[in-house]
């Protein structure tokens, strides 16, 4: 009886391609590190990228945070009914928003908005030979395109997340007043109860690594795009999938390392 090896071959090819992609991304990371000293090349683009990646992401981040805050407050109240004092709603909204949902949901949303955008932009530049054109004009494309995007993501994600956290807590507070028959002093009592300034720092550290991840993954897939429109589509999809996975792994990593 003949046994088809096609699935095994496909699996092998997939594994090899994954290893090659990791290798290429690693080289790109090294090149980006080496290009950091070329401030004259990436410096002029940093503010533009910070505006595109950071300021441009504020509306979607705030939208997500608002509804997350609402849901957290209602679910906390539903869970606590009768067993736990209601002011713990403030505790749960604050802690969960700042430690977990603010950074992670914002990171995941921005892997779609920012990461996919970067992958599509650089991918299109690659397949239309614009990156080659940069090289022939003696520009280092890593310094010119990759470094400002990764730096902007690393700087701006924490700022967006801080805003999202604040709006999420405010939304939870508003929901507590409007729907849960709570007073402001009650909510604030719960919010302050276990609040630790370190939580905000933790949230920002985590977000910064998410920003680095999303932009670096977008740059890696975009920069190494092959083929035409189909290749750009693949790069975009992979960016969202891979950066989302890395965000969740990093989330667990930082919890284990910094919250123990």
């Amino acid at each position, binding site marked *: 009886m003949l046994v088809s090896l096609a699935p095994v071959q496909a699996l092998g090819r997939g594994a090899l391609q994954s290893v090659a992609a990791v290798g290429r991304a690693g080289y790109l990371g090294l090149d980006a590190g080496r290009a950091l000293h070329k401030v004259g090349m990436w410096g002029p683009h940093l503010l533009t990228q910070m505006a595109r990646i950071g300021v441009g992401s504020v509306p979607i981040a705030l939208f997500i945070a608002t509804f997350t805050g609402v849901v957290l407050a209602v679910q906390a109240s539903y869970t606590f009914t009768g067993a736990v004092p209601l002011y713990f709603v403030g505790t749960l909204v604050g802690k969960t928003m700042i430690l977990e949902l603010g950074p992670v949901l914002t990171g995941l949303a921005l892997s779609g908005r920012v990461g996919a955008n970067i992958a599509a932009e650089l991918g299109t*530049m690659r397949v239309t030979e614009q990156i080659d054109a940069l090289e022939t004009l003696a520009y*280092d494309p890593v310094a010119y395109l990759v470094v400002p995007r990764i730096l902007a993501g690393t700087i701006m994600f924490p700022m967006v997340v801080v805003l999202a956290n604040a709006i999420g807590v405010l939304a939870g507070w508003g929901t507590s007043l409007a729907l849960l028959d709570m007073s402001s002093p009650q909510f604030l009592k719960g919010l302050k109860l276990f609040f630790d300034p370190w939580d905000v720092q933790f949230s920002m550290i985590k977000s910064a690594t998410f920003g680095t991840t999303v932009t670096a993954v977008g740059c890696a897939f975009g920069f190494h795009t092959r083929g035409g429109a189909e290749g750009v589509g693949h790069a975009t999809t992979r960016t969202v999938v891979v950066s989302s996975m890395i965000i969740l792994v990093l989330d667990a990593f930082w919890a284990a390392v910094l919250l123990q």
Partner: protein
Amino acid sequence: MSVDLVDVHKAFGRNEVLKGFSLAIREGETTSVIGGSGSGKSVALKHIVGLLRPDRGEVWVDGENVGRLDQESLYRLRRKIGYVFQFAALFDSMTIAENVGMGLKRMEEFSDEEIRERVDACLAMVDMEGYRDRLPSELSGGQRKRVGLARAIATRPKYILYDEPTTGLDPITTAVIDRLIVRMSDELGVTGVVITHDMTSAFRISDRVAMLYDGRIRFEGTPDEMKATGDPVVRGFIEGRPELLGAAT
């Protein structure tokens, strides 16, 4: 010899594209490299500017082995070379003037005013003066190619590499581009390498013509020598007679 490709081999996976490609480009001349689609002409051209490195063999430009240069030396060398891309490869997000001025800006030798003047002069040279503030998406294919040429000449390079400069253009625009290429050589003394499979164009603009076939140079000579050759592969290609190619292989 100013540009010299010596026994260049290049493969992409199992696809061996160049199998001992050797070609010497004479200074001040325009050399066209002809060959069928997918024969590796653009691959050979990309080796000259260091966008690709040979698996085996050497590429020499002005006495420097391109494949062995470090990044900074390569960027220095590239300032001597202008590259006209097949589809122009203009930067979408920049205006035409910004596109043309990119190379000048990088040289860090010119004031904004000097860059502006040089950009305007280059755009005038390709008859695109009125388009400096437009975006590439607002131009036709022929206009984009002319802007690509303006960008390549803006830094006054010693060499210009043209990757299929007339492919897909109408006969009038093709003639305009051909005249520009000849002007680059006559007025600016530029050494040109033109990748094309447009024989009319190749004979019109070239001092020498080389044919790439099966990863190697099959023929090299003046346009008149090429027209007179008895090599069936070359004849088959320039006369568009596949039966001659079939008989020879």
